């Protein structure tokens, strides 16, 4: 067995991990709407602090969290380098013909804060849900069946597909292939992609047959159901209260 592409943050046992996934999804949805709707720094800072607290409570390991934040903030560096120079307003710094505006800087900081808050929220509340449970929770929240099935099959088969990619990669290397900047490399990469596509189509056809063999008629039965308890209600109330308090910050 090779390592999984799907990264497990879900195998924890914090308070957060035990909250009903549906409740957690609704909390994230509510928080995202509020954060997107506000533009004042006070509420944004408060929401960011709330998300940070949740990350601590969920006992997310530092390494995967750091990796996520690094990817996001590498992107955000571009925002910080471009937005202040592209907005009109009071100039606070002049670099040749380009001037950075106070409003632009404030806007860039807002975008960065919003982005980080959302990543912290998603990491603490959604990444801690097992992907398959997440799919079920989405089904129960009336997200269209087809979309959720795509997610489920992706989770199930991404490793199988990745395995065949790694196998082909190794077979190519064993025959002396080295990726270079030439036509041969481009053609070989195209063959690899085409081969993976063909394999996926074949597999999809075989899976469909396997499903028909077991009586499938286009409807997916769900075996496990969720039960929200008092703890979930308490969490939802606490979260709603904290979010409301954050939003009325000066």
């Amino acid at each position, binding site marked *: *067995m090779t390592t*999984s592409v799907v990264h497990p943050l879900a195998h924890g046992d914090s308070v957060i991990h035990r909250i009903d996934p549906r409740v957690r999804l609704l909390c994230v949805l509510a928080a995202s709407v509020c954060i997107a709707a506000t533009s004042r720094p006070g509420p944004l800072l408060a929401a960011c602090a709330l998300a940070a607290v949740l990350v601590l409570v969920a006992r997310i390991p530092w390494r995967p969290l750091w990796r996520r934040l690094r990817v996001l903030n590498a992107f955000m560096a571009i925002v910080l380098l471009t937005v202040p120079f592209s907005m009109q307003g009071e100039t606070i710094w002049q670099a040749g013909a380009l001037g950075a505006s106070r409003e632009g800087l404030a806007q860039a900081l807002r975008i960065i804060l919003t982005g980080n808050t959302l990543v912290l929220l998603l990491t603490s509340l959604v990444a801690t849900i097992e*992907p*398959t449970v997440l*799919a079920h929770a989405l089904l129960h929240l009336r997200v269209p069946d087809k979309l959720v099935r795509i997610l*489920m*099959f992706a*989770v*199930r*088969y991404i*490793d*199988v597909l990745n395995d065949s990619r790694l196998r082909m990669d190794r077979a190519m290397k064993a025959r002396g292939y080295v990726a270079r900047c030439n036509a041969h490399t481009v053609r070989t990469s195209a063959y690899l992609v085409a081969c993976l596509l063909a394999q996926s189509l074949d*597999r999809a056809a*075989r*899976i469909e*047959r*396997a*499903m*028909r*063999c*077991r*009586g*499938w*008629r286009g409807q997916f*039965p769900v*075996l*496990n159901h969720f039960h929200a308890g008092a703890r979930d209600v308490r969490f939802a109330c606490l979260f709603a209260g904290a979010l409301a308090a954050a939003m009325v910050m000066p």
Partner: protein
Amino acid sequence: MNDPAIQVPLIRVRNLAFRYHAGRPLLEGVLFELRAGERLGVSGANGSGKSSLLQLLMGLERPAAGTVELFGHLCRDEVDFRPLRGRIGLLFQDADDQLFCPTVEEDVAFGPLNQGYSHAQVRGIVARTLADLGLAHLAQRPTHQLSGGEKRAVALAGVLAMQPDVLLLDEPTTCLDEDAQARVTRLLLGLPQAMVIVSHDPHFLRCVASRTLLLRDGALCAMPVVRPVLRSV
């Protein structure tokens, strides 16, 4: 076990012909019967059409000529095959094709849920099937994290959960190590169902099959008598 239904063969195939590409026939005049309690081994070279034959028996491919009768019913198209699919279970050559549900428990439950059992009944069936095969400890595991042998066993559990009368097994032991092969062999010997077992491992077929046919040049024929092979010590 004296009821007249036993007199009718579970599977009767007559003059079956099949091809994927016009002009390149794969099967021509396949002829056999499977009766209750029988374990029919089918051997044959790679690409001789063994998997295709099993797909034809399930109604997943359409024959060019000839007939397939399951449990005494003549089956021509999807409508004829569909109600019988629960009574005849196919174990696919690649277990990854069969295990598409997220967890082992749900995968085993897929068939019975489709058959219309209630959730409580399905839970019972799943628990019983997994326990019978000694797989109870795997119930909550994600299917994509199982080992090759575990995948094969869970796929078999998914088929058995539908309580079929006939099993079609496509190379149930390829890619398994000796331990896992021995486990599968023991498991198959303990099952009451009639089976068609496709394999090109003569030793395995001798262990589990009550008779063995060879698929060659598009038809099933008797196994040639094997001359004793020189043993080097």
